[in-house]
């Protein structure tokens, strides 16, 4: 006789703001991720369940959700790591308008990215030779340390200041601005620094560190924001 696999109780948010948590029972499998669970519920129990994902390997940043109260990238979060009591509660990200079930509207997050000075301003064209950047130069190393953001909005969701201050642009936008300010190829470094210090900018950060604690790719937006705050005194960072 075939043995019934062990079951996990999963509660998933259904609806928009006035929705509710609905319970499902999903078999526990080896190497199961939270995204696998959501997909299984959608395929086998609840075809109308709305959620967002794309690459499933931690590159695209689409599948972030709130898992047992904490924002996480669900495709790289193993169930074993988070479902300690055999219960998994999956909700949409905090601090973003909800659309349906687990899907949020990312427009405010992206808009604030632009607001904090995100567009790169090229100082040369494709006809020019590539800029010679020493990978070991202090500016480049500082910029490199803050790159590789996948725009998953986990930090934005984790940040308490975003939660209580409607104008605060958030950690990802400031982290992005910090990479540009340290990029000598960026033509508007001073303008980016000025934008970072406008209303809703880096001076609103309370240094809680939730962004760094939750960043799935191990970046430290807190450190980038500290760099920006330091620039309030010293101006644009320079290669020493």
């Amino acid at each position: 006789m075939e043995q019934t696999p062990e079951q996990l109780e999963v509660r998933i948010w259904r609806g928009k703001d006035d929705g509710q948590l609905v319970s499902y029972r999903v078999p526990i499998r080896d190497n199961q991720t939270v995204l696998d669970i959501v997909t299984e519920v959608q395929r086998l129990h609840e075809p109308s369940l709305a959620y967002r994902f794309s690459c499933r390997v931690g590159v695209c940043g689409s599948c972030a959700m709130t898992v047992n109260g904490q924002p996480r990238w669900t495709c790289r979060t193993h169930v074993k790591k988070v479902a300690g009591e055999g219960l998994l509660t999956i909700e949409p990200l905090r601090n973003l308008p909800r659309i349906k079930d687990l899907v949020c509207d990312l427009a405010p997050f992206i808009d604030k990215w632009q607001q904090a000075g995100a567009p790169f301003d090229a100082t040369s064209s494709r006809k020019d030779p590539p800029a010679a950047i020493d990978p070991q130069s202090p500016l480049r190393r500082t910029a490199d340390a803050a790159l590789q953001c996948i725009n998953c909005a986990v930090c934005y969701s984790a940040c308490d200041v975003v939660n209580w201050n409607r104008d605060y642009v958030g950690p990802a936008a400031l982290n992005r601005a910090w990479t540009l300010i340290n990029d000598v190829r960026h033509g508007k470094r001073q303008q980016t620094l000025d934008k970072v210090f406008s209303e809703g900018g880096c001076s609103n950060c309370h240094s809680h560190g939730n962004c760094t604690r939750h960043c799935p790719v191990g970046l430290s937006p807190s450190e980038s924001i500290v760099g920006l705050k330091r620039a309030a005194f010293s101006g644009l960072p320079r290669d020493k």
Partner: protein
Amino acid sequence: MERYLFVAQRVSAMILGPLVLIHLGLILFAVRNGLSGAEILARTQGNIGWTLFYGIFVLSVTIHAPIGIRNILYEWTGISRPASNIIALLFAIFLLTAGLRSVTAIY
């Protein structure tokens, strides 16, 4: 504007740090024989050093505290930025007036 307020609050905090420590030390020293108005005035009247000390203290507090109040009001009460600006400015005027009045009164 935000940048200047940010810098002003940090710089005033740097000034206030040692001043607060000296002020606390002075309190401990001043109350060793009980606290009396006569003893305070004996120390401060005609003393330009203490007058300058507390004058700088008052100016630093006038800069530091209202900037914090401005942010706390905006973040925690949901009032608009212009409203938090006005309340913070009124608070700064109060601190400056009351503080300098005290400093000049004991000189």
